[in-house]
């Protein structure tokens, strides 16, 4: 398999030949940092959660295109070993697919046939604390000969990519306080970057870097500043101690600027802001960090003093484009709060922001990007009706940026909620919520795939789904956008027009992101639904 796969890759790029020749004496899974940096030049692989460090989730494979999409068929299906929700994005390198299964298990498969190569089971403690989310995992990171997985009991584990054996494991943060790792780690030069879940448990969030070699913690950036640090005064009293700011989704990285971009979660308690007066930095923000030291370079807060659980744990997408006459390095984000943001990623300067779906909480954004909040939209005892719902206009599932069309494709949940304010008293390892919501569900709620102009946020087209989705999208050079639905459809739309070109009923809700790879000259598209990972390709 290895030799055939080498041939397939070698046909693609000279760079890949070089890398693979260098790594030829080793077995599969040799992924030096430089190879991930150059991921765009070898689309046969999928080396990091969002496809590349810029988090485009774009495949430049074009074998499957608008003319032949209606002929693709399942090549194989993999059924997970234990029931649960699949939110993983598989990685594929040198003919091997690495995916995670609930709760924190890892499987390596032959990416051509779906046959299992090895399976790692993470034993979990009986007194596992999980607050505010299902037991899920969104994928692994790979670097050199290791695969890295975060676990719901708060550990980071390094596995041997060839055998699945544990190289090392380290406790990232104590699970008894509500810490869990559900995100796919981000592997950069010699380091593995992770964040934590637990935003509904009153944790204090952070971004961590670990030495990929031995698991030693290299630095920690607290998303909530401690006493004496800048921003601590944006928290009344001691509220910063349990202010959440979880970091539960994979960030992005710019190797040229050598900056790491990580999004942060809601403040705690979620719906009762009375106990935490102030802007609550750096919650609901994106932070730019020095990857060597963890020092903060800049931050931008999308939703100051959030009381609707509109965390910013969405994917920061890095785009290089001409902006008002000059080339700029941008960071764009379709945020959970219904606004689309364009920032300068060198400085954090706010360039533009505009609503991209129905929202009733802000008149707009001021010149610095701060929302002009509509009075009376805070949660209340009797319930306050606000759009979007607490799951937001979008959520963790990935958007996709196509350099071909210049569009950012995003799965949108257009739904309102009654927000309730309740009591909030912190207790270790217990929910710290201060309220809740009642959704306007059913036919009042809408689901969409939107194509937004990546520079303006203007909508180019929309495709209506039956209900607000929980799955992301991937654009390809074949002019397609792949996505999924709660009703079990895996589908492809025309990237230019949004016209539906293909759909497959997979028989179970889709709750993950699509990805694509190539083996032996054949392009595959993978997406999970129900308890299975479905892998499609053109007939042989």
């Amino acid at each position, binding site marked *: 398999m290895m030799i055939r796969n080498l041939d397939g890759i070698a046909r693609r790029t000279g760079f890949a030949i070089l890398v693979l020749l260098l790594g030829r004496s080793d077995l599969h899974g040799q992924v030096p940092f430089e190879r991930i940096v150059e991921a765009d030049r070898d689309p046969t692989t999928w080396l990091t959660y969002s496809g590349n460090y810029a988090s485009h989730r774009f495949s430049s494979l074009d074998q499957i295109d608008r003319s032949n999409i209606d002929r693709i068929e399942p090549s194989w299906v993999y059924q997970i070993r234990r029931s649960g929700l699949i939110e993983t994005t598989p990685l594929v390198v040198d003919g091997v697919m690495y995916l995670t299964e609930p709760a924190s298990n890892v499987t390596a498969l032959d990416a051509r046939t779906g046959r299992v190569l090895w399976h790692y089971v993470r034993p979990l403690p009986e007194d596992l604390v999980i607050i505010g989310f299902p037991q899920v995992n969104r994928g692994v990171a790979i670097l050199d000969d290791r695969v890295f997985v975060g676990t719901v009991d708060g550990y980071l584990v390094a596995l041997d990519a060839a055998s699945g054996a544990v190289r090392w494991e380290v406790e990232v943060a104590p699970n008894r306080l509500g810490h869990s790792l559900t995100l796919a780690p981000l592997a950069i030069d010699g380091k593995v970057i992770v964040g934590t879940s637990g935003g509904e448990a009153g944790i204090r969030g952070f971004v961590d870097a670990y030495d990929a070699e031995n698991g030693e913690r290299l630095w920690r950036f607290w998303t909530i500043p401690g006493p004496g640090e800048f921003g601590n005064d944006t928290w009344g009293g001691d509220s910063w101690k349990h202010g959440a700011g979880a970091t539960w989704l994979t960030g992005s990285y710019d190797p040229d600027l050598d900056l790491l971009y990580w999004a942060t979660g809601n403040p705690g308690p979620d719906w009762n802001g009375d106990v935490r007066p102030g802007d609550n930095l750096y919650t609901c923000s994106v932070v730019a960090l020095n990857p060597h030291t963890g020092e903060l370079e800049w931050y931008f807060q999308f939703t100051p003093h959030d009381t609707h659980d509109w965390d910013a744990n969405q994917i920061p997408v890095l785009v290089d484009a001409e902006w008002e006459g000059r080339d700029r390095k941008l960071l764009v984000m379709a945020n959970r709060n219904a606004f689309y943001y364009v920032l300068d990623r060198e400085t954090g300067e706010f360039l533009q922001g505009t609503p991209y779906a129905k929202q009733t909480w802000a008149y707009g954004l001021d010149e610095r990007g701060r929302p002009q909040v509509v009075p009376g939209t805070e949660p209340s005892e009797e319930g306050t009706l606000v759009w979007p719902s607490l799951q937001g206009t979008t959520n963790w599932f990935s958007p996709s940026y196509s350099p071909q069309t210049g569009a950012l494709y995003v799965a949108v949940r257009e739904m309102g909620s009654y927000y309730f304010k309740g009591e909030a008293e912190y207790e270790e390892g217990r929910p710290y919520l201060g309220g809740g919501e009642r959704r306007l569900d059913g036919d009042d709620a809408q689901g969409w795939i939107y194509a937004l102009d990546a520079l303006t946020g203007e909508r180019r087209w929309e495709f209506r789904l039956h209900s607000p989705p929980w799955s992301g999208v991937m654009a390809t050079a074949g002019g397609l956008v792949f996505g999924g639905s709660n009703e079990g459809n895996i589908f492809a739309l025309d990237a230019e027009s949004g016209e539906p070109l293909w759909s497959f*009923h997979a028989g179970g809700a889709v709750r993950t992101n699509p990805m694509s790879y190539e083996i032996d000259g054949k392009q595959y598209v993978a997406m999970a639904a129900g308890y299975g990972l479905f892998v499609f390709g053109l007939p042989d």
Partner: protein
Amino acid sequence: MKRFTLLVVSFSILASTTPLRAQTEILERGRRLFDMQCVRCHGVGATGGEGPTLLGRQFRTATDAAGIIPIITGGIPGTGMPGSWLSDTEAEALAAYVWSVARVEAEDVPGDAVRGRELFGGKGACATCHIVRGEGVGLGPDLTSVGARRGASYLRESILAPGAKLPAGLRGPHSSFLIVSVTTGDGEQVEGMRVNEDAFALNLRDASGRYHSLRKRDLQSMERRFGTSLMPDYSELLTGEELTDLVAYLVSLRGA
């Protein structure tokens, strides 16, 4: 499980040692929470609505107030009863209130259930669309335990204006009983209950019980007819007294 045991213990302690005034305050707090969170389905004063009355309620899984807490926090899977985000103390207060309400003797629903049963099978022809204890036709919802799931007022309104009271869908986020009318590519008109819908396909079940498998791209038109139902409006078919008897019969249906 461990947490649940602890709650039970702490609640029992509360119930046995808390001074009367504090207990009154807890009940009052529970009532306020009920008014904010539960009234929409269980009705003002827990007299029932889309959800059942809780007056005189016998709980299958609870033998005291603490036993209601898991129902409040976890909901009842497969029914319209959702879980909640309440804090432990809030859930305890709400459970205390619900338990106090469940100790109140429910007033008899007016009407003659025996006559209602005759109407159900006879003049009302309800059994031509509904199954009760295995008998009838399965076009509309099975009513075998409808009295345990719905309040009398809701049942009455459902009979008078069926389209306004479609049961919220248990399959997915949408009602399975919504009426959808389509015109197919070759001009055929199909109207039926929406059994299943996604972005690409639609399954309807027409009044004869026949299923239709439709692809949206093949349809000329599609209309979701909110507020309508295949069930006839009974306001002119039954007298006021007959309606009261029929409701009494439905309320008496509490399972096989």
